[in-house]
């Protein structure tokens, strides 16, 4: 598996898009720091961008890589390697290279600005951790979609729809249901609903740490009231871990029956 991982990682590191992604974050970091003039404020703005953008990029990279390397994967499948290892290697390779672009792209400008002397260093690291989680989650989800869809165009469409649903539509439905059922106690429902969306979960996780009540919103407030800041963070973090494990398990399950 390590060999495949190494290969996928190098292949992606050599592709133009990894650099575009890296440079984008680099510029974003510098611009935000320049405009905000303050590390803590930049972290908040950054959160809003990371939470929507990393899932999108992870989704697109995952689907693209799967379909583009299909023939090569077939060559690998004829080699004496376990097929689960081929796909796990590819999956970890993509997720790692995306995570590297994120961490380096944002890390460099913040370090240059004096992150280590700032109090925001923990907030910032948490942001990177959550961004990495989102990479791993959305690459896994998009790989699942690609594995289940033969048709490239359809697979791409489903993957983008999934992102759109989790990043935008889910919140809309959630809000409408809150307005609609506001006569009922909705605490538990909203807690549960947040767990089912890794993007919402990440947002709450970061906001709990940043401790900005104004931005917490309804679910965040319920979350804090219910669990307190520390337990809430621990809980949301472990649910994020589940969000990685479950799609990966399904991938392995799907592979057992898949024809190439």
């Amino acid at each position, binding site marked *: 598996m390590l060999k495949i991982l190494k290969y996928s990682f190098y*292949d992606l590191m050599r*592709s133009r898009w990894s650099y575009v992604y890296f440079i984008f974050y680099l510029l974003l970091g510098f611009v935000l720091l320049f405009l905000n003039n303050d590390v803590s404020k930049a972290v908040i703005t950054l959160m809003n961008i990371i939470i929507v953008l990393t899932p999108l990029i992870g989704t697109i990279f995952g689907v693209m890589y799967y379909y583009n390397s299909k023939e090569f994967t077939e060559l690998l499948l004829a080699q004496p390697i376990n097929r689960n290892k081929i796909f796990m290697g590819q999956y970890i390779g993509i997720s790692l290279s995306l995570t590297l672009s994120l961490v380096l792209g944002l890390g460099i400008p913040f370090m240059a600005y004096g992150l280590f002397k700032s109090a925001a260093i923990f907030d910032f690291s948490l942001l990177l951790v959550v961004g990495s989680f989102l990479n791993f989650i959305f690459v896994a989800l998009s790989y699942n979609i690609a594995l289940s869809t033969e048709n490239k165009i359809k697979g791409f469409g489903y993957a983008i729809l999934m992102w759109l649903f989790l990043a935008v539509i889910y919140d809309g439905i959630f809000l409408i249901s809150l307005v609609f059922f506001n006569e009922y106690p909705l605490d538990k429902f909203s807690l549960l609903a947040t767990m089912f969306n890794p993007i919402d979960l990440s947002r709450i996780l970061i906001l709990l740490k940043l401790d900005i009540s104004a931005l917490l919103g309804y679910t965040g407030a319920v979350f804090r009231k219910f669990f307190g800041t520390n337990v809430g963070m621990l809980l949301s973090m472990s649910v994020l871990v589940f969000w990685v494990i479950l799609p990966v398990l399904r991938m392995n399950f799907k592979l057992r029956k898949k*024809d190439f």
Partner: protein
Amino acid sequence: MIEFKNLHKRFGKLTVLDGLDLSIKKGGIFAILGPNGSGKTTLIKCLLGMVIPNAGDINFKSESVLKKWDYRNNLNYLPQIANFPPNLTVIELISMVKNLRPKKSKEQELIELFGLESFLNKKLGNLSGGTKQKVNIVLTFMFDSELIILDEPTTGLDPIALIHLKELIHKEKEKGKTILITTHIMSVVDELADEIVFLLDGKIYFKGSIDALKKQTENDNLEHAIANLISKQYA
């Protein structure tokens, strides 16, 4: 050496293999023939573990291959369509496949045979179809394995490369290897094959030597004999 037992495979509503039984003994060249869509590639992919049969069993050296992968160290496979990662150079691809299979390899000899020296540092995305097929052949023949599976090996090759390929296949046969070939080019079959396996409707329709086939169809020309077999599907 290889045994397919009551093999069934469906893709949705389409039944491709329908209770296929076939046993192939060690040593010799076996041509797997059949009309388009008769299940030749599916049969081969089942053996390779790329397609998972709905029912039945496949034995390789009297051990079932289903859900296993280490047996593949003992076989070489030439896929029908050679599409490699475009960002990689030829030599990188070769060393990567070598890396994946810790086994002695003789790629240098083959690179010279097919005149690929000047392409070694070119990216695979920039190669022509025929050159890619040559790289494909090098990757397949560079390891010493008991079983060699060739799916349409002649696609896109120039006449000289074709001659080299045929020599290569002959040499491997003399070493006692078992070679499976699928092709639509009858002259290749006529020249190389010891035995013909003819697939039709997901079953083995004919298995035997070329002479036996000619006798059975009462036809002296192999091409016509095969056409005779195929035409029964349309009848």
